[in-house]
């Protein structure tokens, strides 16, 4: 307690603060504060050097003999001093020597005994000598001591480095396996016994420290200040490692004093704990220092296996903490709780601690190292300890900062300059060479000294080899580091790249989502909504909500859609109503229809009843009515024809109304055919048309598909196209001589033309002459009723296209079946088609039909009559008789010698080939519709051939004769003007030959005249005087002149009453 008071006096502020180790505190105390205060050296030393040992052995460890620290310390310091003196003042860069210098300075009055000194010195020296001896003793190169760095590097040389795989971590990290071993003891003292404890330990432990027999020294005693209270901490150093420890233990077992001590002490303790520690190779060795100080013990529990790393980092970091010499020692546990690191720091006071630590943080590199060590430490309890000066159990322990970092070459690499390493390498090599040379020199000289010298040199060489090895290792480490860094950077880049890719992908995805959102189309956009104004006008406010929707298009659209829905619902409702209405009306109609149909039978029965009355009254209304009824089903053209023909017939009947009209009707009209078919046809006209077009399409398809059936299908198609209407109109035209022309008119529905078939019946049976074969044939009897109307071409220009489709070349081939589509037939039916030649268009229908009816009927009658006449005439012509009726006798002389000998019909082609008919052919008078005949008139040797063209329009169009006389050579109109004149006489002057109307005798008269002309020609031929004999044809005709005019024409004209011939 008194010491405590003293200390409080001395320290002022920190009464409980112990000074330092035993070594420094006396120096410090004597140095700084009035040493008088701390007067007794014992007390002064005791303060800092009270050591307590606790041995591992047994729970009830014996008390150790105490030893005075002071002596040992002083002696050791003195040794150092000696060294210092030897090496010179420049060594202050080294921690070791610094400390020694301090010691020297402050230890001027040290009362250490020499024995101690001596005992310590060899130990210290042995260390030094073992490694550095040569260097220190023989050659001090400035380089080694010029800087701190150099020093630390230099010191690192002494750390034994072995392959990390073969050695324990402890050997890597500790300075030397055989160097110091430390033991730390934690004694928890009963609080009431703390002071007693302190005084007890102070009494005993320093003795042990001072005792030469014990190879242990007490580094320091502390009581805990902050942290675990009532604790005392003792730190022992065993110089010489485990053997020293064991030696110490053995000795203590037999030390009665110590055993006593332990016994006494055990009564004060609550618990004990200790560890065996090794020193970090890069850390300062704990040195005695001036007090008073506070100490900080920082204890770190590391993760297993991280000790090396920790050491490497701290090896780098420790340089930042050198400024105030605050670092006292760094240790790691070897036995006891493992993976524990203790750092011991010393500060003047708490304030200076704070400043020092902050200063460290400001240095670059410190923070990094601290950071790297974070991962390796488990926890970092912080204990500030102060010396347990009072023995009474109040444990004070100066806290030491335990920023443990052990040495490693990896760490060292960073600190070194490669350039300088290179220079060192060169230097070392030179040195080695030099040494080798010297050795060789020495060896060659031989001698006794040489062995020592050589040994010396060898040691030096060893040192140099060590240096080279070191440099080699460093180079390897640098290389590996470089690789690692590169790899690391690469990893980082890869990671960043991956991240970038991920981000890009995310961006892309987001963009896609955005586009998807933008492209979203709602169904409502397709709905055609009512316009905006209309909407606001019509929609009820609870739907439109103008105040909300006016500004917000979304709400507006929603509202409009609502309104649309509303309206549609309404319309649907309306639609249902209308449907039901319609149902109702339909039912009404049904009812009315039934009523109407029930009327029909009644009306029929009334009609039946009226029939006898009609007959009685001779009024065939019913019959006519029936006919009209049927006529309703006629196609329009036939209907027109029917109406017009009926009308014309009635008109004719009325004209000659003298006789009972119905019996002798000139024209009778009837309808033939199946009315039902017509009805069936009439009802679905659209269907049939559709079928038509469908079959068209089908046919086109099938023609492509199936060849073989093509012909058949085309035939069907043609039949379909040429189909007649089932109803036809029958017209009977009676002539005066009771011959009847039966005309049947058909309507070709698909071609829209009318055709007619004709048949002539005569009252009496006719003997049909051969040459008259064609005269009354249905094919030709009506040919060219109007000029050029052959009835073989379709008058409807549209038909040609229809024909092309089904492969009909012309209608000509079908005319026999269908009847002839004469133009006049179309006109009778009111059909009008444009002609090939332009002409004024005629309004069709009834007016057209009516305008043609009378002329056509007359022409028909004339045609039939003339044909009948020809028919008769031909019969006689074939027998060589030219029938001249009595009323035509005046045209001819009584005596005609030339005779018709032949009358035959010839073909058109034959006619064309005749050489003397060329002119007629060229004049276009020999169409193929004409009939052709060949007549032969003879008189004597003269044969007159006459080719006759009989126009179907005969007798209104005269027959044309072409002549060829065979008599004294062949004579035709080409080489004989008279033949030409004869033709002219027959052809051109035919009007006088027509005879009485209707001129049916024209042909026979012409033939007769031809005979006369031949007579004249022959008789008037000038006979050649040179030819002997009588003329073949004596002139019997009376002629005024034989020739006339430049052409010398003969007198062909017969003058009737006088009977002579003259010129025309």
């Amino acid at each position, binding site marked *: 307690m008194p010491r405590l008071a003293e200390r409080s006096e001395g320290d002022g502020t920190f009464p409980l603060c112990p000074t330092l180790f035993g070594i420094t505190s006396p120096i410090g105390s004597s140095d700084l504060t009035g040493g008088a205060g701390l007067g007794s050296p014992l007390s002064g030393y005791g303060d800092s050097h009270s050591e307590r040992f606790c041995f591992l052995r047994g729970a009830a460890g014996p008390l150790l003999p105490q030893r005075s620290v002071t002596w040992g310390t002083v002696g050791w310091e003195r040794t150092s001093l000696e060294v210092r003196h030897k090496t010179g003042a420049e060594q202050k860069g080294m921690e070791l020597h610094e400390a020694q210098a301090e010691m020297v300075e402050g230890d001027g009055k040290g009362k250490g005994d020499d024995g101690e000194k001596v005992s310590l010195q060899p130990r210290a020296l042995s260390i030094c000598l073992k490694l550095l001896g040569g260097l220190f003793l023989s050659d001090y190169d400035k380089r080694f001591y010029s800087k701190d760095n150099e020093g630390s590097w230099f010191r690192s040389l002494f750390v034994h480095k072995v392959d990390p795989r073969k050695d324990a971590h402890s050997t890597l990290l500790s300075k030397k396996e055989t160097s110091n071993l430390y033991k730390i003891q934690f004694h928890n003292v009963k609080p009431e016994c703390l002071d007693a404890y302190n005084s007890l330990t102070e009494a005993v432990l320093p003795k042990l420290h001072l005792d030469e027999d014990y190879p242990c020294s007490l580094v320091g005693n502390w009581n805990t200040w902050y942290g675990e209270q009532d604790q005392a901490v003792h730190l022992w150093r065993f110089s010489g490692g485990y053997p020293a420890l064991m030696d110490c233990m053995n000795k203590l077992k037999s030390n009665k004093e110590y055993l006593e001590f332990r016994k006494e002490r055990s009564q004060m303790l609550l618990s004990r704990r200790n560890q065996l520690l090794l020193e970090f190779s890069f850390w300062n060795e704990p040195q005695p220092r001036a007090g008073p100080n506070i100490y900080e013990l920082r204890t770190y529990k590391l993760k297993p296996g991280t000790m090396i790393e920790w050491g490497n980092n701290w090896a780098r970091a420790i340089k930042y903490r050198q400024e105030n010499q605050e670092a006292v020692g760094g240790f790691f546990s070897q036995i006891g709780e493992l993976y524990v690191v203790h750092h011991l720091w010393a500060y003047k006071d708490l304030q200076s601690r704070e400043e020092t630590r902050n200063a460290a943080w400001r240095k670059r590199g410190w923070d990094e190292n601290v950071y790297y060590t974070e991962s390796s430490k488990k926890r970092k309890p912080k204990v500030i300890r102060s010396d347990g000066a009072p023995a009474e159990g109040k444990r004070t322990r100066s806290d030491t900062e335990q920023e443990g970092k052990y040495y490693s070459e990896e760490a060292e690499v960073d600190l070194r300059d490669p350039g300088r390493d290179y220079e060192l390498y060169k230097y070392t090599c030179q040195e080695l060479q030099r040494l080798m040379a010297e050795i060789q020199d020495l060896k060659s000289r031989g001698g006794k000294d040489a062995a020592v010298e050589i040994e010396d040199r060898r040691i030096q060489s060893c040192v140099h080899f060590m240096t080279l090895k070191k440099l080699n290792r460093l180079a390897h480490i640098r290389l590996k580091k470089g690789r690692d860094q590169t790899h690391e950077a690469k990893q980082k880049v890869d990671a960043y790249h991956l991240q970038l890719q991920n981000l890009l992908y995310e961006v892309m995805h987001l963009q896609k989502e955005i586009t998807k959102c933008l492209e979203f189309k709602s169904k409502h956009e397709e709905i055609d909504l009512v316009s905006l104004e209309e909407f606001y006008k019509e929609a009820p406010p609870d739907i439109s909500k103008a105040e909300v929707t006016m500004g917000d298009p979304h709400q507006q659209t929603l509202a409009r859609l609502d309104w649309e829905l509303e309206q549609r619902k309404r319309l649907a409702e309306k639609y249902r109503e209308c449907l039901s209405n319609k149902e109702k009306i339909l039912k009404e109609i049904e009812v009315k229809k039934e009523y109407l149909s029930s009327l029909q039978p009644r009306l029929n029965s009334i009609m039946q009843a009226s029939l006898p009355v009609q007959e009685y009254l001779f009024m065939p209304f019913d019959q006519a009515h029936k006919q009209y009824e049927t006529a309703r089903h006629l196609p329009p053209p036939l209907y027109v024809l029917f109406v017009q023909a009926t009308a014309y017939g009635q008109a004719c009947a009325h004209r000659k109304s003298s006789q009972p009209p119905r019996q002798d009707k000139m024209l009778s009209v009837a309808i033939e055919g199946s009315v039902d078919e017509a009805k069936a046809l009439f009802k679905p006209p659209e269907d049939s048309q559709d079928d038509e077009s469908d079959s068209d399409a089908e046919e086109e398809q099938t023609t492509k598909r199936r060849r073989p059936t093509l012909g058949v299908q085309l035939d069907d198609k043609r039949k379909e196209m040429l189909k007649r209407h089932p109803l036809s109109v029958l017209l009977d035209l009676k002539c005066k001589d009771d011959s009847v022309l039966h005309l049947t008119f058909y309507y070709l529905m698909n071609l829209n033309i009318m055709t007619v078939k004709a048949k002539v019946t005569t009252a009496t049976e006719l003997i049909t002459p051969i040459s008259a074969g064609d005269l009354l044939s249905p094919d030709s009897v009506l040919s*060219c009723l*109007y*000029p*050029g*109307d*052959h009835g073989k071409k379709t008058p409807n220009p549209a038909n040609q296209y229809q024909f092309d489709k089904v492969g009909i070349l012309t209608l000509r081939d079908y005319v026999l079946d269908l009847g002839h589509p004469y133009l006049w037939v179309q006109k009778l039916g009111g059909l009008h088609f444009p002609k090939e030649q332009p002409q004024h268009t005629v309004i069709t229908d009834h007016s057209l039909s009516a305008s043609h009816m009378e002329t056509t009927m007359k022409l028909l009658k004339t045609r039939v009559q003339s044909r009948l006449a020809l028919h008769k005439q031909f019969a006689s012509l074939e027998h060589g008789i030219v029938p001249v009726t009595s009323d035509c006798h005046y045209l001819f002389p009584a005596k005609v010698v030339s005779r018709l000998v032949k009358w035959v019909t010839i073909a058109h082609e034959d006619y064309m080939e005749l050489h003397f008919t060329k*002119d*007629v*052919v*060229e*004049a*276009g*008078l*020999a*169409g193929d519709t004409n009939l052709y005949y060949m007549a032969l008139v003879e008189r004597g040797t003269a044969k007159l051939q006459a080719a006759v063209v009989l*126009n179907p*329009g005969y007798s*209104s*169009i*005269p027959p*044309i004769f072409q002549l060829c006389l065979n008599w004294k050579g062949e004579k035709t*109109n*080409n*080489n004989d*003007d008279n033949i*030409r004149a004869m*033709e*002219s006489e027959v*052809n*051109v002057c035919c009007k006088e030959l027509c005879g009485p109307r209707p001129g049916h005798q024209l042909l026979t008269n012409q033939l007769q005249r031809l005979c006369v002309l031949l007579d004249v020609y022959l008789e008037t031929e*000038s006979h*050649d*005087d*040179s030819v002997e004999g009588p003329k073949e044809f004596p002139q019997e005709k009376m002629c*005024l*002149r034989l*020739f*006339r*005019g*430049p*052409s*010398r024409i003969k007198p062909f004209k017969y003058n009737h009453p006088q009977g*002579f011939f*003259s*010129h*025309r």
Partner: protein
Amino acid sequence: MERAAQQAVPLGQMEVFQALQRLHMTIFSQSVSPCGKFLAAGNNYGQIAIFRYPCPCSPLSMSSGTWPSGGLMPPSSDTQAPLPFPFSLSAALSSEAKEESKKPMVTFHAHDGPVYSMVSTDRHLLSAGDGEVKAWLWAEILKKGCKELWRRQPPYRTSLEVPEINALLLVPKENLLILAGGDCQLHAMDLETGTFMWALRGHTDYIHCLALRERSPEVLSGGEDGAVRLWDLRTAKEVQTVEVYKHEECSRPHNGRWIGCLATDSDWMVCGGGPALTLWHLRSSTPTTVFPMRAPQKHVTFYQDLILSAGQGRCVNQWQLSGELKAQVPGSSPGLLSLSLNQQPAAPECKVLTAAGNSCRVDVFTNLGYRAFSLSF
């Protein structure tokens, strides 16, 4: 040939009649208008058609022409022109060659019978046929007035039949018109007064043709009786008679003895018909050249040193005076009755030869080489 195109056209009654008429038409006479631009043609139906010569636009070079420049007779004054037929063939055949230009511009009915003969004075067209001669003013004809100016009938002896007039001849010096025909006489009519001054009798059959000897006022006439008679106009007497059929060189009894055509140039005369076409020297009354042509010739004319003749058969024959057949140019008619050479000095560009006969067509020869085209009724 041109008709062939109409074959397809259907014919009605009227068309058939017209076609028949055309088929049997004969064009007996032609006459060129005094202006030289029009041609009148008369046919057997008594119709006269006036054709316009297709107007030549550019004169045609006659380098290939067959008109000889030398010969028996000295070329007349108007034949001095280097281009005797400067008619534009190209114009006629191309732009002007439409059907309309080949149709008559006017057709009118002049006589009841055939128009056998026509001549033109400097103002009038005189036509004759069935016993009457009629005068028409060219100016009016061209205006399509077509009214006869006058008509005269020669004093015939009463007969059952009115004799026809086969030939008209103008005697410009005497201002006389000589008519000859069926009554076997030549009637002279004074154009000034319109009176018939005298008649020359001598032919035993009807007269076919007349020709004028310009140097000495003499008229030649040929007739059915086979004689060519030479009449002196001043004395009105017959001067000479050539009975052609009596000369063996040219006699052809099977054809008859009739003289159908006659032409004269100074002392030379060419005549043909039943007898062969023969060149005669009048003073000696001897046939000098007999032209070898079988068919009877109906028209003959001198042209420069050639003789052109036509008759039965399609061709216009060109003879050298020596009797060589220089060329035969076919026409379109089976037989030709008249040739007309437009030599009017008023229209030198229309110098063409036209030929007509037993058809309704008038063939136009722009040079003697070939038929260019035909005018048609």
